[in-house]
């Protein structure tokens, strides 16, 4: 019996060992694993696997492996848990641009400074770089952590056909936005939907339109109790209290808004540029887009989306191969193709001159208008302890919408709460 078991064991080992040797031979290729979120409804996996094949054809020594992890939050959680548990780290990850502080603090990512040259960086639109630098080592100059890849802004989508039928023009001020929305509201249709299930992002263009962003360049300051912020919040209230142009209270769901718009149940919506291909594909009317009108005119929006991060603690060969791939992936040819296929905005300035883009926008002028909003985009909300500070801000915004507090009271409370947390860093 004993001898028989030994024999089986020997057989098993002889089966496993050659298998291991074969894997080792494959291992001569440098594997670049990339954690990737699926945040829009385009065939992301097909597009990216196609990119990987194209790249590998030119770089036979590199094996690019995309690992699709769900939403942005899932990618971050998985990366941090993998690192903490001592698992195999990916080389790259796409995560929210705003998560830069948490990720660097947790030693999850490393700087691109050793790789990215000034020439390379010069072609990225400066707007996209506003959440890319963090002075972690405290030498007074920020290190580069986030390379812009899938980026978006907030847009005002309006039903151009409906506006024309009612003899209205696209709004250019808060007043016009509200009165236009009011004029287009009927028993079965809302004038405007501003999703407030994840409110800070769609709120930022309104705040900027009142002359006050909720954050500055600093990672420890917020400006919740400034008059401009309070005015912007009051304007949100006015949209249903004064103009009756949007549902009362906390009503609009992020995911429902595009459908309501294309079905004609909402004349205007505030949503991500990422929804543009879907909306253009489904709408049976002419769709107009712009950034959000400001209080006294002008247009405003905010950046959003994800950056490419280089994971900390990978070996030099993998990091070098990852950098090769990132350089290729962020070439204008690829960023334009990515933009056309997904609705994210191209990140490379020179990409807009490519023929592929020119042809595309000749047919889809809205894409060009969406891309143009990067000139008026402010920095997205990002500070230390972002999750908690954001929760405080969200809670107070929802309080205001639910009538539990006035904008001034709520924003004072939000400021106090945020300062309490952020004071630890000052």
């Amino acid at each position: 019996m004993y001898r028989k078991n030994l024999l089986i064991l020997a057989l098993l080992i002889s089966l496993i060992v050659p298998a291991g040797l074969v894997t080792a031979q494959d291992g001569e290729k440098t594997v670049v694993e990339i954690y990737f979120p699926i945040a829009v409804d385009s065939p992301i996996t097909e597009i990216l696997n196609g990119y990987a094949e194209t790249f590998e054809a030119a770089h036979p020594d590199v094996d690019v492996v995309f690992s699709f992890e769900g939403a942005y939050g899932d990618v971050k959680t998985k990366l941090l848990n993998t690192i903490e548990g001592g698992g195999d780290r990916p080389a790259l990850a796409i995560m929210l641009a705003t998560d830069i502080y948490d990720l660097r603090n947790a030693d999850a990512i490393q700087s691109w400074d050793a790789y990215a040259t000034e020439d390379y960086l010069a072609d990225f639109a400066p707007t996209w770089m506003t959440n890319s630098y963090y002075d972690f080592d405290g030498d007074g100059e920020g290190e580069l952590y986030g390379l812009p890849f899938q980026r978006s802004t907030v847009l005002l989508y309006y039903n151009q056909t409906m506006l024309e039928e009612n003899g209205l023009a696209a709004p250019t001020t808060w007043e016009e936005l509200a009165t236009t929305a009011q004029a287009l509201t009927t028993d079965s249709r809302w004038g405007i939907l501003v999703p407030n299930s994840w409110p800070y992002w769609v709120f930022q263009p309104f705040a900027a339109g009142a002359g006050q962003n909720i954050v500055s360049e600093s990672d420890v300051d917020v400006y919740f109790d400034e008059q401009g912020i309070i005015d912007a919040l009051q304007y949100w209230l006015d949209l249903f209290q004064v103009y009756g142009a949007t549902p009362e209270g906390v009503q609009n769901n992020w995911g429902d808004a595009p459908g309501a718009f294309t079905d004609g149940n909402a004349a205007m919506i505030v949503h991500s540029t990422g929804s543009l291909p879907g909306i253009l594909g489904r709408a049976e009317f002419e769709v107009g887009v712009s950034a959000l009108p400001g209080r006294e005119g002008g247009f405003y929006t905010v950046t959003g989306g994800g950056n490419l991060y280089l994971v900390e603690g990978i070996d030099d060969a993998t990091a070098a191969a990852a950098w090769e791939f990132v350089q290729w992936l962020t070439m204008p040819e690829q960023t334009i193709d990515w933009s056309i296929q997904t609705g994210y905005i191209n990140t490379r300035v020179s990409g807009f001159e490519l023929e592929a883009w020119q042809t595309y926008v000749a047919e889809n002028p809205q894409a060009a208008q969406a891309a143009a909003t990067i000139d008026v985009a402010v920095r997205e909300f990002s500070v230390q302890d972002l999750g908690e500070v954001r929760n405080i801000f969200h809670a107070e915004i929802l309080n205001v919408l639910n009538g539990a507090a006035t904008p001034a009271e709520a924003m004072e409370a939000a400021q106090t709460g945020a300062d309490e947390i952020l004071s630890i860093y000052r």
Partner: protein
Amino acid sequence: MTQLSRRFLPILLILPTLYFVFMFTVRPTYKVLNDSQEYYYPSRPDRVRPTDLQLPGIEEAPRSLRGPHDVGWAYYRALFDPDTREGETFRQVMSNTTQYVLITVPISILLAFVFAVLINRPLRGIGLARMAFFYPTMLPLVSAATIWIFFFTPEYGIWNTALRFFGYHGAENWVINPNLALYSLMIVAIWKNAGYFMIFYLAGLQNLPDDVFEAADLDGANWVQKMVYVTFPLLRRTTLFVSVIAILSAFQNIDHALVMTYELATGEADLLLYEVYQQRFEFRNYGFANTLTVIMILILLTLTFTNFVLSERRGE
């Protein structure tokens, strides 16, 4: 067999079980109790600052913002100090969890009992009715929540349409409205669980002796009297059992919260286990997450122990 092996064989036989109990129950419990006395915040930089870590009873001193630092029972003191953020969160979470348990458990048990009585009859097509009541149980909670998100859709969702028919004109977006989100979770839990608990009542009903009902008939008891004075008391052990699993599952199931109310950025719908997840994986406030876990273990232990004592006594 020798005397020695006879003495040690039983111990040897339960050793594997003991090993697993130790590795997967005792050791983690000890570790979480230990770690709950430690400040560790890996999403904060390892930067030394004069700070009291914003915990009660901790003196200000130059410390790393990340930790780890031994803070003793500071998190437990913070839980019961409403001026701290931990205390405020704890108060809200406990209030939510208590409401959730107190509302979902009795309602789903009552519904389960009613369903069981309704379908415990030899009627044609009763199998279909049983199937209908039991169907929600077969769905994973995640799928149930996904279906209900659709029901809860403002304007055209079936839930809001039905409510409007009955004259409701309030807010409609249940899953993202801070005032409604917790109720939306309760509704899904009740819908999901009533059919499951019904099975236990149905089994109980079918095992009831006929003679007591014959005796009740002879005494001229009507249907309601039989229900209240005969059926329900006879099913008291089923009720006890169902209550215990209902309460335990109310503490343990948060799948629907992850699907439905994750977009709600505020804490109005956070249940205890969900908060543990958030603190541990989203905010990375390890000390607080461990402290909440200890509280959760204490609550579950108390419930299990109470159930043990009660059912042992009744068993006599």
